[in-house]
């Protein structure tokens, strides 16, 4: 399955990049991340309680960053398995800066197998989109926080509120069309 998308973050590119490769930040921002441990240079092992609504499963797996070119690009390689199935994938993440807005473009290929793929196939793409937007909204909040401030708190309501306020700001600025 192809996974691709674009997100606009209102924070400087350097700060977004730093947040994206900081394991402490990632652990707070990845939806359902329960554990993220460094196992080597740019390599981590993780436990995720991932899912949407009442459909949830626990996955354990590895994450590796390759081709790290601060502050514009890295390649993300993940593999994981759990009771509901397994997943394996790789993707490129690119960061561009335009007028103080960081534009993240991600593009990858993920293979999903097991129960989740056979019965949940029709919902996979939507679930990935939903989790990606939760993740980038949380990263945006992190990148906006000054170094001496305590890290922001995340959660469904905070994330939703942040998403709404960001969207409103963009509508007011005229960069996106209001929902019809």
């Amino acid at each position: 399955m192809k996974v691709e998308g674009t997100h606009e973050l209102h924070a400087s590119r350097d700060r977004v990049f730093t947040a994206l490769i900081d394991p402490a930040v990632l652990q707070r921002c990845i939806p359902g991340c329960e554990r993220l441990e460094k196992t080597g240079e740019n390599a981590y092992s993780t436990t995720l309680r991932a899912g949407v609504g009442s459909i949830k499963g626990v996955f354990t797996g590895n994450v590796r960053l390759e081709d790290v070119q601060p502050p514009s690009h890295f390649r993300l390689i993940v593999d994981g398995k759990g009771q509901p199935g397994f997943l394996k994938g790789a993707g490129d993440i690119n960061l561009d800066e335009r007028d103080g807005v960081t534009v993240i473009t991600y593009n990858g290929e993920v293979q999903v197998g097991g129960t989740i793929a056979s019965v949940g196939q029709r919902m996979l793409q939507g679930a990935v989109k939903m989790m990606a937007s939760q993740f980038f909204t949380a990263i945006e909040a992190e990148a906006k926080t000054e170094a001496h401030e305590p890290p922001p708190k995340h959660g469904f309501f905070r994330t939703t509120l942040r998403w709404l306020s960001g969207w409103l700001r963009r509508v007011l600025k005229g960069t996106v069309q209001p929902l019809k």
Partner: protein
Amino acid sequence: MIPAQFDYLTPATLAEAVSLLGQHPDDAKILAGGHSLIPAMKLRLATPQILIDIGRIKDLAYIREDGGQIRIGATTTHFQIEASDRLREICPLLPECAAQIGDVQVRNKGTIGGSIAHSDPAGDWPAAIIALGAEIVAVGGGGERVIKADDFFVDMLTTALDQGEILREIRINIPSGRLGQAYLKVPQPASGFAVVGVAVNLTRDQSGKCNSASIGITGVASKAYRARAVEQALTGSALDDEATAAAATHATDGVSVNGDLYASDAYRRHLAQVYTRRAIEAAASRAK
């Protein structure tokens, strides 16, 4: 196909169910007809510790008229709605939608409240509920509140219901005027879920022009949505072939269309436009 272990609670009243849910906010799920939750549990995609069965609460399955509204209780089954002669008379979209859900077994046990609270992105009810501008009554620890259909569906499998709230009733203003309604879908051949489902609720004026139009589309995106661009293009038009076809091209405007193995996003987008056109035609022809 054997679910993980869980506790099973059978409250006798809705107040008791709300209080039980309040005691177990993180690990309890509400069970109504069980035709979405139980299959997910058997596959262990959902593993709630506790099930609170509201299916045994008396007086929660009903179809009533009250104060110009149709009121449907949460545990009313799809079949009860499909078989209601009164609904066929005053709001035919409801039985037409119910008749196309799943198979006979699903319609006999599955409930309208369960389907809406589950908010499957390909569920049939959300499209109809949006097209009818329904109101959803939720009851929680702090009392009751009414949520508009447009605000109810938040994202895939995610609704505006709080963790401690239970969906109690669906309210629909009894439609009036020269009314035309239709629900058309392309069912997934294996599951019966909507690859695309379009619900149309429109009225015509004396001259036959479209007075108002309300359209809900399911199966296409992460949640059912209201096709406002189609409604705008349709309102005031003569509902002739040309106007209908032009309006239907807006079926997926501003929507992020999802694809899967059965139907790619491009194919779904196309189906959405074709079925929107056909559903408008069917509704317009019924508005006598």
